[in-house]
């Protein structure tokens, strides 16, 4: 598909993602911050699309926005929110915050200068059709072991959750 006005979309999407990321932290009402998080996740999915990775974008939407965020909203709703809103934001440690910001900024600048040659300036034109196959081949080919271990870990987590909730069912 011939790319259309990619630069505009790229800046718009990344601004959207960053902005909603900031919103997540600053919102007082937990539900609003959860929604902001969803918006930023969708922004990331759109960015994946820009990088010709539709499969990863689709999975991102299903898993993050559709699955995990719904659980987040579930928990937020079951815990009554009035109490959460009353605790005001503890942002007295200005000094620590400032130091962390400076360190992070320095790191960015370093990467930007040093890494000029690292990233290829023109992204390699991967045909869109093959993205799903590419992911499948990698996932079940080279990284088969990691895939199995991850699934095992998830299985343990699920069983743990069931055991914990067992006494109430």
């Amino acid at each position, binding site marked *: 598909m011939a790319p259309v006005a990619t630069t505009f979309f790229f800046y718009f999407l990344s601004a959207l993602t960053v902005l909603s990321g900031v919103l997540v932290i600053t919102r007082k009402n937990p539900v609003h911050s959860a929604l902001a998080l969803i918006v930023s996740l969708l922004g990331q999915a759109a960015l994946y699309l820009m990088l010709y990775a539709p499969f990863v974008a689709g999975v991102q939407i299903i898993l993050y926005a559709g699955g995990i965020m719904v659980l987040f909203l579930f928990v937020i709703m*079951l*815990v009554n929110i009035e109490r959460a809103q009353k605790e005001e934001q503890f942002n007295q440690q200005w000094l620590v915050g400032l130091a962390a910001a400076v360190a992070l900024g320095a790191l960015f600048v370093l990467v930007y200068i040093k890494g000029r040659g690292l990233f290829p300036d023109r992204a390699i034109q991967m045909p869109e059709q093959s993205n799903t196959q590419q992911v499948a081949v990698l996932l079940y080919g080279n990284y088969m072991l990691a895939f199995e271990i991850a699934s095992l870990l998830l299985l343990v987590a699920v069983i743990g959750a069931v055991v*914990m*909730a067992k*006494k*109430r069912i």
Partner: protein
Amino acid sequence: MIDRTSHLELEQHERPFLDSNELIINMGPQHPATHGVLRVILKLDGEKVLGTECVIGYLHRGVEKIAEHRTYTMFNPYVDRMDYVAAVSNGLGYCEAVEKLLNVEAPPRARYIRVILTELNRLASHMLWLGTHALDIGAITPLFYTFRDREEILKIFEKYCGARLTTHAFRIGGCVYETYEGFEREVKKFLDFVAPKLGEYEELLTTNRIWVERTKDVGKISARECIALGVTGPVLRASGVKWDLRKAQPYAAYADFDFDIPVGENGDTYDRYMVRMQEMRQSLRIIEQAIGKIPDGPIMAKVAKVMKPPVGEIYHSIEAPKGELGYFIVSDGSTQPYRVRVRPPSFVNLQALDMMVRGALVADVIAVIGTLDIVLGEVDR
């Protein structure tokens, strides 16, 4: 809202896992599934019902107080307004109680007409129960089938005594209207019309997997608990007790007909559904036998215009569609009864709701209220 549920002895289990405390939900009095003006306060732990408290009395009209200021015949129409769904059997109970007081016997023709009309009314009441009960559980269609067939019965009532619901068809001493010309033919036509219709309801519901799943083992009550709580009627029979006043202490002309009493085994909502469906078939059998041999003769016994029953008291009860409907009448010799006490089956059956529903889910509360077949006019009197 003063905490009405404090007295419920709820099993104190440890702090709930999430800090979601118990939810007190108010179901009614304007709730689509409470069959009238009944308010049930549910104490919920998430979806599970911990305890219930019924708040009734919204439809209390003081019928028993009015009875003390009316003569015996004047009070007759009030009786129909109590269980307005099965008005004919209310009237039958009252008239027979006063006839016993006066030591008067209704002539055989009147007794036969009384049996036919009461059984038709039982059919109508069970049909209304089935329609609304299925609607509460989610099946929309049976409601329209049952109401279409119930319409036929109401047409017969209307032709016989002018009124469809609160018929006031009986008087103390017998019936007041002679059966209109063509009564037997129309009732026979109705019998053939409705027999296959019962099959239609069964087709829709009895083997419907979701219906079975929603009613099996829901609101279980054992025979012993039924008797202890004074629950009577189809609910008692569904728990396995083979007891029906029409057979145990026959009144009107029930002794002349043979019909059997359907009985369930494990007293859950599904058994009550089956028992009532069988009961409808038995009513058809009774009407069939009765319509054939209505004896001719007078329809009204010789009763003084102004009745003055001797001093004394009487308790007479009949098998209303909902259970044992009893009248305890005390007379002091004057034209007005000194005290009329009505023993309403729905009032006592509703008492069993709390025991049947504890530990069940909210959806089951709706199903159990439906299966108890309560009418609030009778509960509140």
